[in-house]
């Protein structure tokens, strides 16, 4: 199995079309959760106008302009993504959004759910790209993190022809425009974002959870779950120390590693989990754990309604899964067409209603509310975060070299590698 890396793509993906048709049970449990998750996070989401995008497409440098000028439009697109990350009909397995795209543009999409883990996927495609060959995909989705930085450093990606992406600049949320990991959106546009916070079972913990300090509480010894992903693990410790990960220094990392070591030595940590942390929470083996917001959603739908998700007072990590075009893509113009097509309230809204991650298109909220008539998703701050939430959201540290990544890894790997 697996070593995993940054993200679980389990969203609160209720890819059940019954939802669209107003299935009550799933709705009710989801509403309860969405509201509970909103506790302490302030009021309802602010109207989209408050987040108006204010960026402009940049001009390509001549080398890339020459590349794009040579491309001819094609009728195909090979889109590689994580599992359960797009609207899917339960009975037929079809994707309404993709079919609509084909109808509107005449481009046939081959949709492959072949990405399970950033590091493993990177290890698979890097040798191919290094040999100058095509990996066979036109769009891939990678989380912001070391692998994404590497893809850019190794020159494995195609720069985006931003003039073909007007919708992105018109409709995207500010949190995904000009991100630290991809200044100017030269290579990527976000597909979905997500939060890493704390999940717990109030029946087992006996009280409400509000802070990272709770993960270090000796009362929960042997029943605390932490993540094995070193980026998540280290960032949580940094937040506990009151340090913003994106501005941290190697000295900070050493301090964070020290408190993690302490947590381990006191026998507080039950296990360092990959996505399996959710099973441990469901089974009651752990009572409190680092968690990705979407997993708890899904657990609810599966019948584990006791679990709650909370953004700790020190803050939560906000990560982004991004679409990008690898070098050697056979249908790059089609890729741009899809990216532009996605950044509309209608398309993002349709897909968001199934994904239930953080939507990169704030105006989709209105669409989901009015057209899809799904107030639970539309009004949930976990899908359309408030300004207060964004204030509490933190980005991962962006490594600028192999040595830096190695330093972080070497600092934190002794914790999980025992």
């Amino acid at each position, binding site marked *: 199995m697996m070593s995993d890396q940054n993200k679980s793509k*389990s969203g609160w993906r209720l890819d*059940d079309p019954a939802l669209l048709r107003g299935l009550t049970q799933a709705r009710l449990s989801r509403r309860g959760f969405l509201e509970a998750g909103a506790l302490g996070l302030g009021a309802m989401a602010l109207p989209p106008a408050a987040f108006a995008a204010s960026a402009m497409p940049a001009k390509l440098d001549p080398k890339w302009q020459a590349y794009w000028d040579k491309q001819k439009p094609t009728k195909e697109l090979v889109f590689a993504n994580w599992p359960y990350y797009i609207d899917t009909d339960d009975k037929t397995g079809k994707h309404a959004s993709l079919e609509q795209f084909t109808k509107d543009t005449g481009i046939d999409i081959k949709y492959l759910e072949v990405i399970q883990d950033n590091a493993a996927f990177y290890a*698979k495609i890097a040798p191919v790209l290094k040999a100058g060959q095509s990996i066979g*995909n036109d769009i891939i989705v990678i989380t912001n993190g070391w692998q994404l930085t590497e893809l850019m450093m190794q020159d494995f990606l195609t720069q985006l022809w931003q003039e073909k992406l007007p919708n992105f600049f018109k409709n995207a949320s500010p949190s995904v425009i000009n991100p630290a990991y991809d200044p100017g959106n030269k290579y990527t546009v976000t597909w979905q974002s997500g939060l890493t916070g704390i999940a717990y079972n109030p029946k087992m913990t006996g009280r409400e959870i509000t802070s990272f300090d709770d993960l270090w509480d000796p009362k929960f010894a042997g029943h605390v779950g932490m993540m094995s992903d070193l980026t998540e693990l280290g960032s949580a410790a940094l937040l506990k120390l009151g340090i913003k990960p994106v501005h941290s220094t190697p000295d900070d990392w050493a301090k964070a590693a020290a408190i993690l070591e302490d947590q381990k030595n006191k026998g507080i940590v039950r296990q360092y989990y990959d996505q399996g942390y959710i099973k441990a929470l469901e089974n009651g083996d752990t009572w409190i754990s680092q968690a990705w917001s979407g997993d708890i959603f*899904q657990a609810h739908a599966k*019948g*584990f309604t006791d679990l709650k998700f909370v953004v700790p007072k020190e803050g939560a990590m906000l990560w982004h899964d991004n679409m990008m075009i690898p070098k050697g893509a056979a249908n790059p113009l089609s890729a741009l067409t899809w990216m532009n097509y996605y950044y509309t309230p209608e398309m993002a809204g349709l897909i968001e209603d199934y994904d239930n991650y953080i939507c990169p298109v704030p105006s989709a909220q209105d669409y989901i509310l009015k057209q899809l008539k799904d107030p639970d998703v539309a009004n949930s701050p976990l899908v359309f975060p408030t300004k207060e939430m964004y204030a509490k959201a933190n980005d991962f540290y962006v490594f600028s070299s192999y040595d830096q990544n190695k330093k972080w890894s070497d600092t934190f790997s002794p914790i999980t590698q025992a």
Partner: protein
Amino acid sequence: MSATAQITTHASFLRRIGLAWVLLGVYTALFLIYTLVPIAVMIAFSFNNSPNGRVSLKWLGFTTRWYHNAFVVQDLTVAMWHSLLVATVAMVVSVTLATPMALALARYRFKAKAVTDVVIFADIAAPAVVVGASLLSLFLTLNLPRGLFTIFIAHIAFDIAFAVVVIRARVSVLDRALDRAAADLGATPWVAFWTVTFPLILPGIIGAGLLAFALSIDDLIITSFVAGQTLTFPLWVYGAVKTGIPPQVFVLSTFIFAGGVLIALLNSGVAHRNQR
């Protein structure tokens, strides 16, 4: 010892053996239950009425609807088909290649024997990550597109070693005298092999084949490197387990399991009485 005493000793020996057989039989049954327990869980939860098309290990009611929609998840069904195909081909080819080598290693002393042993052994011991990555590099250098064909190649490569070990264990307990007798009776080595040796090592060959099949159908790491865009069952399931596997995974696996049980029952019913 008197004749009576001899008979009594012999009888008590047989009686004690009789008891031992019963106990062992019970033990074997318990052992079978132990190996089958997770399967029982899987079959039980394939009937679970879990919502949203994902497996839930919390019982939510009985339903057979996943069986009605067993082949709805297209990618999964195709992946399963690929796995069965690869495992079968790998099984046949690896056993065919391994048998002569097992014979050579078990019966002869030759200069390259030590090296061969090390290679076979290395094939079993090499970490999957290293083997997978090295094969990917090879395929890239040879400009071989990654897909079913490269998966075949990779699986045969590791299956050969396991097959050699199993078949060799069988060959090394054979009585060489039988081969010599065949030669004395004028059989050429080829004829001697097919009429004498082969039937005797057949259990070993079948055992090696089953082992190769099991290894192939469950391989994850090596396959993930060399598969390109092709999916096999373990790859698909491993990918989905992080977000939630659809109940069809349990359903299809139950089908495979049921098919296997059927084959076993048929084999029992029809088998020759091969008493020893």
